[in-house]
Each structure stands twice: as C-alpha cells, then as structure tokens.
C-alpha cells in the first residue's frame, strides 16, 4: 500500500441469504483521484458502496482508510471517518425541507433550538457551489427526482468528507445538469477530495474519471487508467463477452391514430399540448428536466387532471380522472421514480410483475390462476433478463437496474395500446438497455404505440419515429427521425 493510497479494500465478500453479492473483492483507491466503478446490473457495486458507508457489514475482508484498518458498523462510523455517500436510491425525508434534509443529523443549533437562519444560509451556499437553484425552504416532497438527486448530492458534499461516493448520481439528471455536477467534482478534486463514482453512462467516465474498476458477478475484474480504455473495452470487461450495445430501430408501418391529445393545459405545468400518436409509432419526448414532460405523462395517465383540453383514444374522447381510467382505456405508464411509484418493495418479483395484469389472470370468484401467473411472470423475467434468484425474491432486494426492469416487465405484461415510458432505462446497464430497446421495438411491431420521455439523447434519437421537444411546458419543435440531431434538439430545448 503506497502512501498516496486513501482506501484499500482487501478480500471483501458478502452474501445475502444464498445470493453471492461480492466475492473476495480487493482494490485500492488513490488520494485525489476520481475512480469509476462499473459493472452490469447486480454486479455488486451498490453492495460494496453500502459496506463502505456502514449500511451493510462484510462477511469477510478488511478495509483500510488512510492506512488504518477501519471497522464500519454504522453509517455514522463512515461519516465520522470522512466518507460521504450519495446512494442509488434516494433516502430523503419527503415531509421535511431541503435544508433540513441536507443537514439532517448535523443541524446547526443554539442549545438545542435549530438556528434556521444559519441553516438556510449554509444550504444556500452549498447549492451555489453546485450551480443549481433549489429553494432551501422547499419541502422535498414537492421536488422532482432531479432536484431531489441534487439535494442528496448537497448532503454528501456538505459533510466536508475526504472520500465522496456517488452511486449513479446522474441517472436522473439531464446532460446540462450532469455537466454542472462534473465541474463541481473537478473543483473538489483539485482541493484534494477523492471520489468513487458509479455510472452506467459509460461516455461520462471519459469526461470525469481518472481510472476505472470493473466488477462482474460480484468479482473484481480489473482496474485501468481511463486513458487506456475505449468504450468497447469497458463493455467487454463488464460483460465478459462481446455484445451488441446498440439495437437498430425496426421499421414499422404506422397504423391508425390511437392517442390524440388536443390543446391540453394544466396551469404551471404545461400549455397547449397537442399531438397524435399512431399505432406502431414511437414518439420521443425530449427536453430539459422541468420542461413539463413528466407532468404531461402524469396527466395523460390520470394522476392529475387537466385544466382544459381533450384526450381521444381510438377517436373517442375519454375522461381520465384516475390511473384506473387510463388502464381501462389501454394506457399504461412506466413512472419516473421506481421506488415511489413503480414498485411495492415489500412484495415479491412475481407479485409486482403481475400487479397490473391481475384482472386478466382472474378465474372464477376472483381467484388468481396461479399457473398462468407464474408462467407469465417467468416469461417476462427471462425476456428482460431480470437477475433474481427466484421470482419469489422481494423486489426490495434486487439491484437498482433489475428493479427498473421489473417495472417495465409489469407494464409490458399488461399489454396496453399505448405505453407511456418516463425514463425507461434509468439505471440499466448497457446490455440490458439494448434488450429493453429491443422489447420496445417488439411492442410497437405488434401494433402498440409508445410515448417515450427520455433525457438520454442517444436513446431518443435511436428509437423514435418522431421527436417532440418540450421547453417550459410547451412543445417547441417537432422533428422527424431523420432530421433530428443532438445539436438541433439541445438548441430548441433551452
């Protein structure tokens, strides 16, 4: 171990009742570097991070921090040592304000009474450094996923840590916001702070990382300087075989219009939204976070009611006041936040996947046809390559990317006419992403229609037949598949 080694992990193993999450993993991280940690969904990245932040304890192995052996029993132990973590799944208290969340556990006070003036001022300063505008007094529940992600990041950065660990921090950020984050990381790095950075967006790593460590099936594969790597190298190290990371779009003959939206408005969220979605079509919706895309999806799905405007399905006007109305019209939604809106974490993979399909699995007397159910679920699980020891596993125990696949499996199994996707491949590894794109392709080939919101331009450009660009609640531009480019979309989105 050299003197400039900040963290050394030696022979770490971890099992979860029969599942081998980490197997004898060893590597070192140098002071002041940005180390990327990559691997397929379920490779063990988050588990390792949770061990380093005192949430899980390793079954065996040792951790050296600053050349001393450390025992991380609780998250507090890790924080006291100077290890701050932004976890993959957000852990904020929704009913409290932004600044209360940022300084939770370290609230500034005068003999027990919280000093709100200082609290808000300090929070303000952290966000200024991050270059994002978030009101310190806003209640977290009212914020979108991207802003919540920044609150988490602020929380970690404000701890004055020596090592900052980020588990997929950009999975819900748009390109511009990610750039903000990168420049903050660069600044902190130059002041001597070390980072461990997990991401499935491999292209980011070339901008931000100095070196990269690859895990596969819980085992250490390699550590490389980023300058020695190409994208293909990384993918091969992750997967252990060559795969196609790009799924070519299938050409589908467009059919009848299925969804027609006419002049839809909701004050403060979106204005004058009109478009038509045809059978067999993938309509991409691009735009910055906060452009009103998720709000539009929520409204089409009956989570919120429009102030004015009309929605037609198959030419018939329909009133959608609650999700059940939308489902009955054949509209399904893959929501943006899997933990909050997509999954019942306490239920099994099986029960989650079949949840939106129960009415079709019903026999006499409301009984669930269990053979039909297990067949359908097993089919979906293998089609999406969901990594789980069995379909009885609790969804809460799956890795993040596999949880995302469960949400997709659920909605695809429901076989809707219109599938609304809000960031469908968030947190999904490269191989699985191509798999999901293939699945979406197969869905429209069978006559389905897809409205796809995505902050990833390659995904939008690669998959869509047409692209709507939204900005400040309005549709500002429509592109055909062949005329759109990253630059054109970005310039309209601003």
């Amino acid at each position, binding site marked *: 171990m050299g003197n400039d080694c900040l963290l050394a992990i030696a022979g770490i193993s971890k099992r*979860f*009742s*029969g*599942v081998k999450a980490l197997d004898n993993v060893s590597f070192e991280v140098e002071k002041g570097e940005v180390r990327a940690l990559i691997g397929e969904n379920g490779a063990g990245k988050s588990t390792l991070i*949770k061990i380093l932040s005192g*949430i*899980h*304890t390793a079954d065996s192995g040792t951790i050296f921090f600053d050349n001393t052996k450390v025992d991380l029993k*609780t*998250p507090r132990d890790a924080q006291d040592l100077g290890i701050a973590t932004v*976890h993959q*799944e957000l*852990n904020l208290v929704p009913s409290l304000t932004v600044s209360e969340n940022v300084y939770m556990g370290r609230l500034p006070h005068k003999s027990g009474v919280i000093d709100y003036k200082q609290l808000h001022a300090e929070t303000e300063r952290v966000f200024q450094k991050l270059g994002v505008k978030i009101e310190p007094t806003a209640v977290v529940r009212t914020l979108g996923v991207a802003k919540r992600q920044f609150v988490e990041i602020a929380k970690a950065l404000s701890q004055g840590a020596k090592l900052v660990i980020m588990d997929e921090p950009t999975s819900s950020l748009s390109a511009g916001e990610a750039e903000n984050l990168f420049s903050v990381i660069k600044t902190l790095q130059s002041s001597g702070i070390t980072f461990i950075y997990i991401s499935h967006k491999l292209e980011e790593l070339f901008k931000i990382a100095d070196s990269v460590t690859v895990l596969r099936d819980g085992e250490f594969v390699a550590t490389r300087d980023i300058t020695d790597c190409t994208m293909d190298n990384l993918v091969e190290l992750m997967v252990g075989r060559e795969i196609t990371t790009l799924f070519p779009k299938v050409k589908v003959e467009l059919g009848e219009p299925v969804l027609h939206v006419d002049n839809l408005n909701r004050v403060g969220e979106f204005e004058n939204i009109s478009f038509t979605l045809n059978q067999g079509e993938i309509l991409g919706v691009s735009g910055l976070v906060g452009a009103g895309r998720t709000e539009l999806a929520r409204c089409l*799905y009956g*989570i919120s009611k429009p102030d004015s405007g009309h929605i037609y399905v198959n030419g018939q006007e329909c009133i959608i006041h*609650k*999700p*059940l109305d*939308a*489902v*009955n019209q054949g509209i*399904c*939604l893959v*929501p943006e936040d899997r933990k*909050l*809106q*997509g*999954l*019942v*974490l*306490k*239920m099994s993979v099986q*029960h989650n996947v*079949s*949840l*939106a399909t*129960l*009415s079709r*699995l*019903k026999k006499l*007397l*409301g*009984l*669930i046809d*269990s053979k039909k159910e297990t067949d359908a679920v097993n089919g979906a699980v293998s089609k999406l390559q969901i990594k789980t*020891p*069995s379909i*009885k*596993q*609790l969804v*809460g*125990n799956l890795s993040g990317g596999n949880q995302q696949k469960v949400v997709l499996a*659920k909605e695809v199994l*429901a076989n809707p006419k219109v599938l609304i996707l809000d960031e469908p491949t968030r947190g999904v590894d490269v191989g699985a992403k191509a798999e999901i794109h293939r699945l979406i392709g197969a869905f429209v080939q069978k006559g389905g229609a897809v409205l796809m919101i995505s902050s990833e331009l390659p995904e939008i450009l690669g998959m869509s037949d047409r692209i709507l660009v939204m900005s400040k609640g309005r549709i500002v531009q429509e592109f055909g598949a062949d005329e759109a480019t990253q630059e054109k979309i970005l310039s309209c989105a601003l």
Partner: protein
Amino acid sequence: MEKSFLQKYGIVLVLLLICAVLSFLSPVFLTAPNLINVIRQISINGILAIGMTLIIITGGIDLSVGSQVALTGAVVAGLLSSGTSIALAIIVGLAAGALIGFINGTIITKGGVPPFIVTLGMLTAARGITLIYTGGRPIYNLGSTFRFFGAGYVGGIPVPVIILGIILIISHFVAKHTVFGREVYAVGGNPEAAVYSGVNKNKRLVQVYTFMGFLSAITGIVLTSRLGSADPTAGTGFELDAIAAVVIGGTSMFGGEGAVTGTMIGALIIGVINNGLNLLNVSSYYQQVIKGVIVVGAVLMDGYARNKQKKPAKVS
C-alpha cells in the same frame, strides 16, 4: 427470498414454549377439555383479529370493532325479543355490521380522514347508538334455539370454534389467492405504486372495512348467543386484544406484510396466557401486568429469532 424457518415460525415456537411452561406448572393445562375451552375462548377475539389483520395490512386500523360488536349484538337481540325469526334477525345484524364498516371505509377514502380518527369517532358513536337503542339496559329473552351459535356443539366441537375455523380458512384463501387479497397487500405496501398500477385503492379499502364490520357482526351474534343477552357495554376493549393478536402474529403495523395464520397464533398466545393465569389462580390485578409483559416479550422474542437469522438491511 422465501423466509427461513425461524422467520416464518418463530412465533409458533414462542407459543409452544409458553405451553410447555404452563403444562409444567399446571397438570390441568394439557388436557383435552381445557384445550377445547381455550380455543372456544379465543374464537371471539380470533374472528375480530382476522378482520383486523386485513385492515392493518392496508396500513390502517379499526378502533371501533368493540362498539360494532355491541351494536350488532343489540340489533339482533332487539329483533329476536320482539319475535322476529332468527334467520331474519341474523341477516339484519350482519347487514348492520357491514354498513358500519362501509361507513368507516367511505369516510376514510372519500373524506380523506385517517382511519385512526374515523374509527375512534365510530367507537364512541356506535357505542352511543347502542345505549340509545337499548335504553342502557341488557336485552333478554332471546329464545333457547338462538343459544346454538354461542353455546352449541357439533360433533363435540363448540360452534364458535367451527365458525372461526371456516372464517379462517376462507380469509386465508382470499388473502393469498385472490385478486382482492393481492391488491390489499399492494395498497398497504405502497399505495402510490398500487394506484399507478391501476389498482382501485379506495374500493379495496372500503371492502376491507366492510368485511371488518361483517365479522364484528358475526362476533356480536356469537357473543350475544353465548351470554343469552345483549349487554350495551359488551365488547369494550375488544379492539385492543384484536390488535395485539395481529401484531404478535407478525403483521407489520406499517402495512403491506402479514398473514391471518400468524394472527391465529397470536390469538392463541393471548388465549393460552389468559387460561394459564386462571388455572394458576393468579389474581386478576397481577394477570394484567403479566399479560402485558408477555405480549411485548413474545414480539421481542420473535424479532430476536428473525434477527439472528438475517440482519435486516438498515437502508433499502
């Protein structure tokens, strides 16, 4: 992951342990008549606790079950003493119970008032209505045929035990194998995700509270039948025993997890403790203290057994 043996059956071991201790302390405890007696005594709490399990799985609570028992019992008794046929009286009683539950469920869902508050209100209101209806006096003269439901036997088994058994089997089946049951777990586990998946959350909640009212009415009928009269103060405190049985049985107060089979073990533990303390002639003042300690201790031991198996993740 399928739960390990201890996780699933830890509470059964607790029950067996208590039984072992009692059979050591009292020679009468482990005799057939006494055990049948225990099961008969828990049938009332058992029926209520089954309904309470479903409610707690949705993340709710029903504090009004004791009052529901008294009111439905009084309704049935009132009809019987004025010469109505037993069948009609029972049907009206069951309908009255279901109606109270329906009202609870509707106010909770349509009015957006928390279950704790709604059912707390119903606890007082239903009790008041019972007192008004009965004029504060017990209703007697219910006829000897009616005694069958609370005090009769079929093939040597007390009728309340048979009723409990039937309800237990049906409820277990409904919870585990029907769309209704599955959606109830989903609503309790993550209401938002359930709604996003197209589950009619409000309908399920109303159904669960209505079912609770229906079970309260059955309890009211059994109790009135056994006592031979309807006392307007009957059922006071029943909600606490029912909730205790549910929690001892491993159902999470946060919702989304649990099973009626566990609840039945919980009800048995409470019943066995009551019975044992009586057999040992413990004074009723001490009984209350011991019961409280054992109830909390049982849950502690169960939790300890589970934790030994697998340390749960502190953050998911």
